[in-house]
């Protein structure tokens, strides 16, 4: 066995622009999927909470489907299968964003729903007794109270979405992990390349995780 390995981090440092571009794409995917996923998830959550079957049923199907099919399978499906029936062009970047967004939406829907459900029925009653219509109660009474309870789990979900962005490399979207793959193919330095990328992700995600614990404690206390 050969243990003495000559580390070659120079090839990483000299090609920092490749990784920087990869990081940029990772951030783009994250930004798009967080906005679309958490946004759409909000309406799915309302749909799942609704008393009306026409809202509840499709929301339930959507949520259960994308919670229970692995994200990578969904990405592959959106890239290879979806274009056949899609009315619009689907490139790898779009496919990855679509897949991660629906995954994030499905998971966040239940967070929103749980948040709404955690508000006591007495609060609804107090609103109704003042003559407030359903939507006004949601907007003025329920949401402002529920938001404190959904922010910590939504943060965790957001972190999960950032981690999922690496899966886009499988369909050759040139995000951070894919850049490392390319670098290592050119410079034969997989150890350095993948270690560097692992560390970059750790440095992004770890503080976010600590921050979500902090939020949880902070918001949990003020209740």
């Amino acid at each position, binding site marked *: 066995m050969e243990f003495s390995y000559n580390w070659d981090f120079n090839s990483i440092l000299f090609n920092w622009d490749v990784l920087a571009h990869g990081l940029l794409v990772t951030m783009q995917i994250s930004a798009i999927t967080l906005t679309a996923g958490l946004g759409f998830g909000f309406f799915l959550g309302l749909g799942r909470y609704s008393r009306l079957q026409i809202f509840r049923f499709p929301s339930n199907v959507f949520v259960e489907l994308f919670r229970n099919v692995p994200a990578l399978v969904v990405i592959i499906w959106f890239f290879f299968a979806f274009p056949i029936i899609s009315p619009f062009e689907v490139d790898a970047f779009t496919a990855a964003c679509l897949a991660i967004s629906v995954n994030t939406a499905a998971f966040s829907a239940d967070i929103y729903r749980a948040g709404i459900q955690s508000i006591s029925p*007495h609060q609804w*009653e107090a609103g109704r*007794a003042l*003559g407030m219509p359903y939507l*006004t109660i949601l907007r003025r009474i329920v949401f402002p109270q529920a938001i404190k309870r959904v922010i910590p789990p939504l943060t965790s979900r957001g972190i999960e979405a950032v981690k999922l962005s690496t899966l886009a490399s499988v369909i050759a979207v040139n995000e951070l992990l894919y850049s490392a793959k390319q670098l290592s193919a050119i410079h034969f330095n997989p150890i350095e390349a993948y270690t560097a990328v692992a560390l970059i992700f750790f440095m992004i995600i770890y503080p976010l995780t600590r921050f979500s614990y902090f939020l949880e404690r902070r918001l949990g206390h003020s209740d």
Partner: protein
Amino acid sequence: MSAILSIKEMKKSFGSLDVLKGIDLEVKESETIVILGASGSGKSTMLRCINFLEMPTSGEIHLNDELVGTVRGKGENTNITYRESDLCSLRTKVGMVFQQFNLFPHMTVLENVMEGQVTVLKRKKIDASNRAKEQLGKVNLLDKIDQYPSHLSGGQQQRVAIARALAMDPKVMLFDEVTSALDPELVGEVLQTIRSLRDEGMTMLLVTHELGFAYHVADRILFLHEGQILEQGTPQDILFHSKQARTKEFLKGHAAFSLPNPETD
């Protein structure tokens, strides 16, 4: 004087359980009615049906001679449907105060009292704020307007809840066991607030266990038993000269209430 609120044949069942078996009631303006009854007699359900927090199974409610709801169909086949807008407009005219206060914890005292005025009655913020302060002044809480409900005692919270309902300028007020969740030493301040409301001529329906209080404030007492009004009359009639065995039995169970002394009051 004509009835401000009239209830006809109001029934309510939960599944096969008939909780209200036909309530008829005419409430005159400025009248204070206390509803008594054992637990399970349907007294809370009756209050909650009056402002449709529970949907009555059948029956009609008229407020100021106007039918609540929308009549559909013709001739024999008419029925009343309730749209959200019907119910919302009714509820602005019928205020309700709950056992559990149910203040909005994310709003200050002032914001709690302004909320309905601004979002439902569409009052200007400044007007709503003035009206809120006026009501909070009446319940002696002007010094608490910027506090959050969690910093208030139960009695103070309940007085805010009363101010919140009154700020909507309701025609009728419903009080559902508003002192039951309070520590004994805090009951007095809430009852005092209700009593001064009566003196101002507010029309009120109260469900309460405070018989002494009922004796002093009620113009009329209803005794509910198994979803029906078994007996009604003046406090004297019901509390001291009841004709019904059920009523007497109920009152005996509440023998702890101190017999009110009209002279000192």
